């Protein structure tokens, strides 16, 4: 403790020294005098001391925790124990679902719009979670699949006048197809190389959309895309937003359900094994090519589907919506939330999408805060908000074991 105190003191003195010319001395050129702002010196000293102390304290705590874990004691926080409790989980889910159903009636259209984009990112996060979180295949170009879905609806709608519902599965299937197309060349790649190829893939899709004017109408994009129809009923903007909101809620529920089932299935286990140790995985008889391709394809499926909805919601799309920045945000959602954890990804999406919306006042510092949050997260909680919850199974010996223990 004393050591940390001393070090923080040193840091603060050093900072005062460094910032002295900037923060304290000000030459007032109009009156030709030098102003001494001693108050700012105090501020710098106090702030740097406090931050440095906090930093050291957190690091020390982190170390202590690590040591405990290394000794084999697995500590589950209260929150985690609560999450493992099934009845609590069902209750919480019920409350959340009820809340999300009444949401558009409590809040105005603006709020619903924000919510829709947050939910879009929830689905994108859950999709990417399949390839990155479960199968451990880094994908820096995930937004490409989102673009595929959005453009497939926009183009089909523009040329053939097909509606939203007809195109929704088409978008998903096309996303899948592109997932497989990307998957094939990168079957043998790992780590950094995989990251670079997927990054390139994302770029290619964007560049193609920007430059192939005859096909995608270039940078000017496609406008007047139909909103989702409901038995041909005419809806005003508000009604339509509410309708899209409900579609989105349904889609999120659908995605959660299916990704949950996939994760707890034979396929999902193979994905996780692939993430954990590729060589052991193939040596245990798992077909690597098939497993990797299915992870990419299923991850891309959701991006394709939700892309269709995105196009229908905004009624206008152009390549600018599908930049690398989007891929980075979706990836951050997965990493921040906790790789592989469905609940974590949902939380991550809400935090990363809703917070900036509601903190519009600080919008200039958005990316700064974003970066800082990620760095801090990686240092203090590298496993994400929600870490891996272990799956429990029922087997015959279980009861006797409980009786003996």
């Amino acid at each position, binding site marked *: 403790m004393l050591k940390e105190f001393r070090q923080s003191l040193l840091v603060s003195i050093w900072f005062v020294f460094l910032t002295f010319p900037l923060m304290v001395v000000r030459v007032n050129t109009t009156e030709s005098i030098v102003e001494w702002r001693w108050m700012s010196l105090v501020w710098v000293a106090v702030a740097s001391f406090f931050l440095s102390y906090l930093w050291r304290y957190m690091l020390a705590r982190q170390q202590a925790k690590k040591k405990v874990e290394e000794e084999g004691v697995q500590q589950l926080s209260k929150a985690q124990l609560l999450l493992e409790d099934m009845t609590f989980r069902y209750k919480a889910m019920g409350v959340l679902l009820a809340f999300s159903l009444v949401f558009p009636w409590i809040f105005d259209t603006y709020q619903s719009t924000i919510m829709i984009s947050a939910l879009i990112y929830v689905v994108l996060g859950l999709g990417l979670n399949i390839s990155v979180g479960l199968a451990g295949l880094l994908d820096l170009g995930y937004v490409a699949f989102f673009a595929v879905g959005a453009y497939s609806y926009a183009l089909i709608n523009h040329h053939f006048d097909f509606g939203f519902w007809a195109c929704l599965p088409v978008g998903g299937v096309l996303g899948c197809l592109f997932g497989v197309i990307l998957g094939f060349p990168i079957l043998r790649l790992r780590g950094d190389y995989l990251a670079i190829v997927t990054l390139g893939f994302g770029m290619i899709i964007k560049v193609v959309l920007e430059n192939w004017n005859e096909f995608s109408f270039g940078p000017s994009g496609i406008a007047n895309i139909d909103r989702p129809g409901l038995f041909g009923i005419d809806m005003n903007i508000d009604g339509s937003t509410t309708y899209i909101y409900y579609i989105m809620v349904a889609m999120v529920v659908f995605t959660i359900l299916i990704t949950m089932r996939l994760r707890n299935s034979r396929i999902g*286990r*193979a994905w996780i094994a692939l993430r954990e140790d590729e*060589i052991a995985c193939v040596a*245990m008889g798992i077909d690597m090519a098939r497993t990797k391709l299915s992870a990419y394809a*299923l991850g891309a499926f959701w991006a394709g589907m939700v892309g269709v909805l995105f196009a229908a919601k905004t009624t206008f799309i152009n390549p600018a919506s599908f930049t690398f920045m989007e891929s980075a945000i979706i990836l951050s959602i997965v990493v921040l939330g906790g790789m592989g954890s469905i609940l974590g990804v949902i939380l991550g999406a809400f935090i990363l999408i809703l917070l900036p919306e509601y903190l519009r006042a600080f919008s200039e510092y958005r990316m700064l805060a974003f970066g800082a949050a990620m760095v801090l997260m990686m240092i203090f909680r590298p496993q994400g908000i929600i870490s891996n919850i*272990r799956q429990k199974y029922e*087997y015959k010996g279980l009861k006797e074991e409980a009786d003996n*223990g």
Partner: protein
Amino acid sequence: MADKHKLLEVKGLTMDFGGLRAVDSVSLEVHEGEIAALIGPNGAGKTTFFNCVTGIYTPTKGDILLHPKGLATRRLNGLKPNKVTEMGLARTFQNIRLFPDMTVLENVMIGRHCRTKSGIFRSIIRSRGVREEEQQIVEDSYQLLVKVGLGEFANEFSKNLPYGAQRRLEIARAMATDPFLLLLDEPAAGMNPQETAELDQLICKISEEDRIAILLIEHDMKLVMNISNPIYVMEYGKKIAEGSPQEIKDNPKVIEAYLGEETDA
């Protein structure tokens, strides 16, 4: 011994890494019901031999033939590791390769993957067949855990297991693939004498009860001499001797290469 069914037949296996010949025309056979051992000093090429047989490396020269009982002979050269495993040949690793963030039970369940078949769509629908298969996987895996003495740890993360238990878990995971031949790479490495003795019994039990032939690499001479016959000895990539434990003990080449100081002490 001659009338026993031959399961694995390796002829003149050679593996080059650039200019380094790690395995130099090694021939070896494993018969039904045998516990064969492959021994040799560090860097002799034993692990490389295993990696060639299990498809992790494609050998430079030689034949690896598998004769499953009642099925046609298959040449394993160049086959992918998962295909080799599917044909009934499972292995463990010298440097433990478990899936650390999966539970002990899940680790074994992965081994059942190639013997089960629910696909993506059926998993999503979770039909009755899938649920039954899933439950069967859990039960089978748990039984294997009990067999290797890890039943009580089923729901722990595998990374939290003690070292010796991790090695036994690797064996359980390999057995979950229903092999008829099990390759163990230094299963006793890092174990204390007590654990080694238990492993000794476990290996014999697997050989007798499950009728699985075993080929093991081991540095622990007591274990090898106790349970295995025949023994193959490698040095600098070459096979220098083969025979019963007694023959190996008396073989001057082996004593010179490897056992010398140890048996005298």
